[in-house]
């Protein structure tokens, strides 16, 4: 009953609002990175908003989230204080984790939200969260976010099995961008991910991340099931990764700038000729593999038809869209400016 009612009422306006905030915050972080105020590898979740928000919208007090290295979007969606997040990025003592964790190691104990930079770890942590839910707070659920690259990690596959045999209240959300760093995932993944999950006895579905309402509906089914004690589910959400693996991604730079691409291909051509190595056929195959990766990366843009914000906005009244986006920008700007002021950096 509850399920049917909620399916009928996808809170599209609220999803858009949260996605707008997530996007604005990610873009602001990109700016801070370019200003040299954020160190290390910054993995932004631009393109993933629909996957994140469509799931997190269902969470309530007592639920938990285990997150991968793209850790800000789920926290922003869950309502973690933006200023505390921004200060953490700046490595400030007043940051969410006192400047100790940074963007890859964000922890919000108040919301039972934990991230990890180790690929696949989130699925295991979520199983543990779910066990605690099962034993101490029946009706609450755990969500794990990870990429399709992580789906080849042994610990993740072990976690799927564990969740199945322990009937854990967990939803595994696989954000499928088709890229694992510079590797085209299809080349490194045998079979299909949903079939893998089903083989462990988990119900599995696949939806488009640029249709947040579809994500929301699929997540509603899985989370209701988990809340009722009927076990774990697996959801693949197809997303785009327009900025590459991290900011300043070399592959994106080479793919987007014809001069860089030309220089790189000249360099590689020179490298393949004239020195001792394998026979010509093998070298040609090697050259083709690199070229294929670069040309595939050229196509990885966030086109309007794959941008969850653009696609959702088309279903809303234009004045609502404008108001929500400007409010999101204002809220994020305010948090970033306050954080910069506290950290003593110019706005």
């Amino acid at each position, binding site marked *: 009953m509850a399920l049917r009612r909620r399916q009928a009422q996808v809170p599209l306006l609220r999803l858009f609002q949260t996605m707008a905030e997530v996007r604005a915050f990610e873009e602001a972080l990109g700016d801070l990175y370019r200003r040299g105020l954020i*160190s*290390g590898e910054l993995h932004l979740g631009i393109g993933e908003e629909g996957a994140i928000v469509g799931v997190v919208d269902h969470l309530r007090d007592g639920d938990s989230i285990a997150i991968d290295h793209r850790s800000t979007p789920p926290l922003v969606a869950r309502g973690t204080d933006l200023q505390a997040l921004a200060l953490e990025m700046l490595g400030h003592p007043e940051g969410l984790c006192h400047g*100790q964790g940074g963007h*890859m190691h964000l922890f919000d104990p108040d919301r039972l939200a934990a991230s990890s930079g180790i690929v696949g770890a989130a699925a295991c942590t979520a199983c543990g969260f779910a066990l605690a839910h099962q034993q101490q707070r029946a009706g609450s659920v755990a969500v794990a976010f990870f990429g399709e690259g992580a789906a080849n*990690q*042994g610990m993740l596959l072990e976690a799927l099995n564990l969740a199945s045999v322990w009937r854990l209240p967990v939803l595994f959300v696989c954000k499928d961008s088709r890229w694992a760093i510079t*590797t085209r995932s299809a080349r490194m993944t045998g079979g299909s991910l949903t079939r893998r999950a089903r083989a462990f006895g988990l119900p599995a579905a696949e939806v488009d991340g640029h249709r947040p309402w579809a994500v929301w509906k699929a997540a509603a089914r899985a989370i209701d099931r988990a809340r009722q004690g009927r076990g774990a589910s697996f959801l693949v959400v197809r997303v785009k990764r327009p900025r590459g693996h991290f900011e*300043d991604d070399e592959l994106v730079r080479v793919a987007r700038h014809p001069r860089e691409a030309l220089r790189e291909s000249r360099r*590689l051509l020179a490298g393949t000729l004239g020195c001792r190595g394998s026979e010509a056929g093998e*070298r040609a195959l090697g050259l083709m593999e690199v070229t294929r990766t670069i040309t595939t990366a050229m196509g990885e843009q966030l086109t309007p038809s794959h941008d969850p914000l653009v696609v959702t906005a088309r279903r809303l009244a234009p004045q609502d869209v404008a108001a929500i986006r400007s409010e999101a920008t204002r809220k994020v700007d305010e948090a970033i400016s306050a954080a910069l002021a506290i950290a003593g950096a110019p706005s």
Partner: protein
Amino acid sequence: MTGARRGRELGLGEAGDFAIEHAMADDPRVIVFGEDVPMIRRNLLVRFGPNRVRGTPISESAFLGAGVGAAMAGLRPIVEVMLVDFLAVGLSALQNEAGKLETFSGGRWKVPIVVRATCGGGYGDAGQHEQALWGLLAGIPGLSVVVPSNPADAAGLMRAAIEAEGPVVYLEHKLLSAMWLEWLAGSRRRNVTFDVPPAGATGMVPDPPEVVPIGKARVCREGADLAIMSVGVGVHRSLAAAERLAATHHLEATVIDLRTVTPLDVAAICRAAAQTRRVLVVDEDFIAFGLSGEIAAVIAEAEPVVRFARVATEQTIPYARALEAAILPSAERIVARSLALCA
């Protein structure tokens, strides 16, 4: 030393590749595989082809274990794990397989695998991506662990690692590798800076690369007042500290680049300890149960009346650059500990 020897100027990361290129051209058994290897090592891919230069899924347990099996069955795999931190995910392949097989087989079966990984901090990536971990790995009997501090050693130790009959973990420090700094630290940004020791990041490499024997330390500087021992970036921090100690405190330090964490060059360590009677270990790895404690034990067994101190990383490496700089071994901390040791 003849001045006419052939060589080329390379970065530390390039020097490792240079040794691999030579080995791959000489020996068809040498293959390279690991995460993102087709892009990261595309120089090798276009020269040796996808059969010998292979990408892997993000499956450390599987491909490290496969590396061990491949080495047992006739190949000479160089298995690349992007960051040593990720090695923890597939550690069993080293701890329970590679390190044990020679003994378990009664010496009848050897595992000539090289595991190549980056290590070390100093660019604000925090403790899941910046650990040293050579102490953890050196605690596994049967493994060799090498940590070059300059390009010539990087090429020479890589060549030695590939030629070795047993498993070798080869760790290259990210601060010394321009490619990794660009990748992981966004070093193309003009508004970020890193304390990169120039002598470690680029230098002359003999062409063809000359073997630097595993287990052989190098004396970088000689002095009678104390001996500072380190590996990787720590060697350069130690040398900088030694210059300051000489200039402002009239203390002359011997500086030893251990180059290999295991097997330790016990003879070189004990010689320096006997000569100076004061030993300071500079270790970017965690302070407890690691390299610094091991050196103390080795010295205590041989030279009981040596004063000992250490500068090491004493906690999980934090994200904030300022916090990170305060906890990683620095020339300042080395000078301060040296003065206390010599007081």
